[in-house]
């Protein structure tokens, strides 16, 4: 497996994915959600309410079931749920994206360093990987919330703290294989610095696989973000940040009377997760050469 070969494989996978219906559906779902997130405050009927401000109009309105005027109903203090859910897509998608990119960056760099540099770095980083991969993010989030107060940063930090280890492990295993290839040995023989070899030769060959894995994982990350936010939402006394998980958690205490408060954010969460899963599935299937074969069914 030469460097060019892997690159081409990564590109081909995406090209093949584009021919699949489920991939296109996934992209369409995520693209429309992203559009909602970007346009959010400009298209929703009550932008201030969506951001969490309890306006006088909202207070007068009170909780109302879904109707033509308030498509998703209004929450317990009268804020329009449609605005809140739409603006909430910004928070949910942004958190997922930050977690994916943050843990990818940290994971790939540390994994490559561990796999290539060997010695004490390998031992230390490996130990950290094995330790952090076991920590349940919800516990870290809870501890950090008590110490520095619950916020979106707490959730993102606690998830990055656990997810990086997973990508580092994959990157580590891959770079241990790649460091034995000729092009690495030649570069070493030519006297390149070790750090240069690690980032110039190892990292580009490791990255595609790890990034593919992160695409597959993104739905789990989205749901984990939502689960932790649910916990924070169900203890918070006033809910302002329009995050889907938090909205479900906050609406949970009113579920028997104002069911629409939890139902609609949850519905959007399902749609978003489905989008991520459809993309992840097609990527994982197309990147495995054996699954693509349309051979005679031997078995």
């Amino acid at each position, binding site marked *: 497996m030469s460097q060019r070969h892997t690159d081409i494989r990564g590109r081909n996978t995406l090209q093949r994915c584009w021919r699949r219906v489920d991939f296109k559906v996934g992209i369409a779902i995520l693209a429309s959600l992203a559009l909602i997130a970007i346009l959010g405050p400009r298209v929703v009927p009550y932008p201030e309410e969506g951001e969490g401000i309890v306006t006088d109009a909202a207070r007068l309105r009170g909780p109302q079931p879904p109707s033509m005027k308030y498509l998703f109903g209004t929450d317990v203090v009268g804020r329009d749920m449609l605005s809140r859910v739409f603006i909430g897509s910004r928070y949910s998608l942004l958190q997922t994206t930050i977690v994916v990119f943050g843990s990818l960056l940290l994971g790939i760099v540390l994994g490559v360093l561990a796999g290539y540099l060997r010695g004490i770095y390998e031992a230390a980083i490996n130990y950290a990987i094995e330790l952090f991969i076991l920590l349940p993010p919800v*516990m870290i989030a809870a501890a950090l919330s008590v110490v520095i107060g619950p916020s979106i940063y707490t959730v993102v930090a606690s998830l990055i703290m656990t997810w990086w280890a997973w990508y580092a492990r994959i990157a580590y295993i891959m770079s241990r294989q790649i460091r034995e290839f000729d092009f690495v040995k030649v570069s070493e023989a030519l006297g390149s610095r070790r750090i240069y070899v690690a980032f110039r030769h190892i990292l580009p060959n490791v990255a595609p696989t790890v990034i593919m894995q992160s695409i597959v994982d993104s739905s789990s990350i989205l749901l984990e973000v*939502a689960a932790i936010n649910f916990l924070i939402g169900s203890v918070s006394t006033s809910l302002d940040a329009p995050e889907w998980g938090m909205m479900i958690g906050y609406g949970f205490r009113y579920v028997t009377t104002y069911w629409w408060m939890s139902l609609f954010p949850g519905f959007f969460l399902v749609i978003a997760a489905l989008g991520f899963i459809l993309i992840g599935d097609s990527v994982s299937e197309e990147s495995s050469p*054996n699954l693509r074969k349309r051979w005679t069914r031997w078995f």
Partner: protein
Amino acid sequence: MTKYYIKRTLFGASLILGLLVIIYLLVYIAPGNPAYVWAGRPRGPKAVEAIKQAEKELGLDQPLYVQIALLTARFLTGDWGVSIAFKQPVLAVVARSFKATIELLTLSYILAIPLGLMLGIFTALRRGSSIDMVLKITSSIFISIPRFWFALILVLVFYLAGLQPLGRIDPRFSIEIKEVTGFYTVDSALTFRLDILLDVLVRLTPPALVIAVYPLFSIARYVRYSLSERFYEDYVMEAISLGISRQAILARYALRGTIPAVVQLAGMNFVYSFVEAAVVEIIFMREGVGRILLEGLLRSDYPLIVAVFFVVSLTLVIVNTATDVIQKKLDPRVKI
């Protein structure tokens, strides 16, 4: 073989030490005054006293190495301080709730692993057919439904149907039940109280099913994927050409390479399931780790949260070590 087990166990033990370091950091990086946070941000006339007490508990007046030694000794002996929310020793509160969560997770995994295996084998044998497509779409949908939302809908449906399988046990039985092990299913079975056992199981099954969804479908997907790949391996082809029956090939050759990874996958999913269990328990109003987190967050009960953090991570270290050992037993090629 034995060398591997010893090495793996020692590594697990070293992870526990790493865990203590993380806990130490979590306790002492608290901005401002760690003792103030540890005491639950007290106010009022007794506040000064409470902070003094917390300082003594944490050993903040001691030098750094004494602090670390103190914390390690305290955590390893089970002296985890007093819970602010429950006004009981943290150990007692955590032990009780933790058993409830473990009971729930155990049932989920008892359901998830065999069902996932069966579903995976079934779809792998029929890959590309319409039933495979249907099951694939179903599993995609089930995996993408956030479990807590699913639980919420279930509770709502139960509520509308007039059923309320909420809580861990009927309040009537909660006094009657004799606590032997702390696991209600085991206790009621041991004392031959079938009515209690039935009640406990009825309340246990719906949340267990909700938690089982993720490991079930992820195992099924993995098995389908891994088996379909294996069917094209040379050794399977050769077995076919030798005229060995399909069932024998499946059970003896193809599946064999899949099982160790399934064990590993189940172990990895266990971490994820803990997050879900915490949240699902809150929705089904069961006692457990989720409720501890809830109360802890509400009252800034730091000793409690740190203790739960320790216990849950410890469990995961043990589960992980166990899965590695089982994997080695099933697949002798595995190395550290």
